[in-house]
């Protein structure tokens, strides 16, 4: 295997938001690595900070948000072969706008109707970023836009160029958004719940489209989602977030077949399985912590049936899972001194079954 080329390196990122009277610590020390051509997924409940992390990468935090500490190092190779690394946190707004946003890093949002301009034709919206960032001539941009539209699977692209967003279906709109995102040949594509607003049938098509384009263009992709089915389909590496921290990370197989953190166990158990006949679906008890208050110990401890005493006092560090270079877990259960705790039997059975299914295919 060729050496993996690091594209993005986030270290100890902390972000807080000022709200009425209180400071919300939305992100509390996130580390993240992304390599060229690979796909990572960030999963977690709403409010866990997965969207905020990626918004920081794009430099589109809300006005009341500030990056308290940390670095976001972004590395790219220019066409002449020279390598550059820049810390996005230290860049000025102007620099981000002209260099990064839309040009080197592009984003696909959840709702295609709100991310498109209703008063502009599709064609104009696909052409605009190229003309803005690269000064492409109108004719050339038009040609490239038609190409892009057919690349994302829109039939009769020339006719579609003149359409307005409301004339297209939800799946078609999301394809247009992807075409816009790809128009400036970004190195990194961030997909924030790209299929949540779409039907299952269209969801599969859009995910397959992104996968194809990724292979063709050697893109790195970050998926943000709460749907583990989507994660299973697309991701190489998974980061599980809870209350502003990454609590478990590893390859897709490690997270799905050998999860170690009780929260990951809960997430996996809560998914409806097509074969379950249980009377009740598993739910994680309680609700996520209020991040305006300082979190004492492990943020997940109050909802955790396996919590140890130390979880209430001290925040667990990232433990390496023995025998793996990629699998890391932030839980005191991984400490060699901790009592041995096994995942719930029902989840273990399910994983056993999943592994068998995987072999059978």
């Amino acid at each position, binding site marked *: 295997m060729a050496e993996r080329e690091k594209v993005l390196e986030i270290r100890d990122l902390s972000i807080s938001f000022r709200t009425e009277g209180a400071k919300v610590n939305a992100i509390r020390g996130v580390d993240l690595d992304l390599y060229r051509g690979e796909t990572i997924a960030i999963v977690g409940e709403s409010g866990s900070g997965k969207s905020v992390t990626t918004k920081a990468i794009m430099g589109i935090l809300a006005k009341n948000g500030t990056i308290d500490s940390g670095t976001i190092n972004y590395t790219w190779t220019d066409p002449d072969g020279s390598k550059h690394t820049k810390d996005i946190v230290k860049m000025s707004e102007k620099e981000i706008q002209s260099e990064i946003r839309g040009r080197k890093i592009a984003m696909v949002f959840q709702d295609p109707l709100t991310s498109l301009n209703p008063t502009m034709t599709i064609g104009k919206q696909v052409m605009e970023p190229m003309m803005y960032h690269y000064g492409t001539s109108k004719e050339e941009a038009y040609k490239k836009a038609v190409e892009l539209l057919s690349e994302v699977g829109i039939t009769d692209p020339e006719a579609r160029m003149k359409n307005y967003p409301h004339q297209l279906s939800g799946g078609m709109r999301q394809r247009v958004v992807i075409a816009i995102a790809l128009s400036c040949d970004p190195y990194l594509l961030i997909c924030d719940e790209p299929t949540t607003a779409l039907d299952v049938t269209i*969801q599969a098509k859009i995910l397959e489209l992104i996968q194809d384009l990724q292979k063709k263009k050697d893109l790195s992709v970050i998926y943000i989602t709460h749907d583990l089915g989507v994660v299973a389909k697309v991701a190489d590496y998974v980061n599980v977030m809870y209350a502003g921290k990454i609590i478990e990370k590893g390859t897709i197989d490690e997270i799905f077949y050998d999860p170690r953190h009780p929260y990951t166990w809960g997430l996996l158990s809560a998914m409806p399985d097509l074969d379950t006949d249980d009377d009740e679906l598993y739910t994680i008890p309680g609700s996520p912590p209020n991040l305006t208050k300082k979190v004492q110990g492990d943020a997940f401890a109050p909802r955790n049936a396996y919590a140890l005493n130390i979880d209430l006092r001290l925040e667990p560090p990232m433990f390496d899972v023995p025998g793996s270079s990629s699998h890391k877990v932030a839980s005191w259960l991984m400490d060699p001194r901790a009592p041995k705790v096994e995942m719930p039997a029902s989840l273990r059975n399910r994983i056993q079954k999943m592994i068998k299914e995987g072999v059978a295919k």
Partner: protein
Amino acid sequence: MIDPTKPILEVKDLKQYFPISRKFTVKAVDGISFDIMPGETYGLVGESGSGKSTTGRAIIRLYEPTAGKIIFEGQDISGKMSNEAIKTLRTKMAMIFQDPMACLNPRKKVLDIVAQGLDIHHSYDSIEERNEKVYRMLETVGLSREHANRYPNQFSGGQRQRIGIARALIMNPDLVIADEAISALDVSIQAQVVNLMKKMQKETGAAYLFIAHDLSMVKYISNRIGVLHLGHLVEAGTSEEIFNNPLHPYTKSLLSAIPHPNPRVEKTRKSYTYDYKTSGLNYEEGTPHKVSETHYVLGTDADFERFLAEEGKGF
């Protein structure tokens, strides 16, 4: 009283058209028939634009059905309704909507939102009784009585959906129409709401019409499932029949699109494409063909033979 052997709701050849212009009419629902037994959950699935929400809205009479009959508890509620029919319809049928923020009045307290049905039908003798009913309802859906004096924006998505459920269930309906009730929620919250709906069904014996596009949840909650496509009911059966033995190519394509939370299976799997235009099927000519006592598939005689020949085959 409800007769448990008779369907609580019968939909016969329901059509719902929307005229757009003189020449063009959208046939959102084009002749579908099904029935729901008391206490059962009927799942209605299909892609967007298949007419599943329109069906739900036509049944609760948010629309005026173009043709066909809707019989609810023995009364015809499809044409002009008698006063009595309106009363049964409004008290015995309730709806839970998709977006819990959009369907709750932001300027009303939870107490008044949930009590609205009681207020309209004057089904209490004193304010204390009314409030007590609301408090009890809030507690059954997993909220506390302190929540009654708050406004909808003070709640999380899952809690808001609980308020929607409390509002729907306070009149003790016999049929609840849940239109994508969990689609806007997180996976872990979805499970909570589905568990709550199941629990409420056990307690009240209400029947559910569960409209959704997420098939794994539908399979989990429904006794029987109807698959809608382009306003036609292309296949109907028990959830085992639909999931284990799908016959119609559209059902197969829907099932193939469900993401499996299993990376080793999912990585190599391609979803199966079904295109009505190139499939050679004509829904308008098709008639329901019986596969088993409960399993029906739409098609002409020739289609039906082809479906049977392809039975059990993958994609």
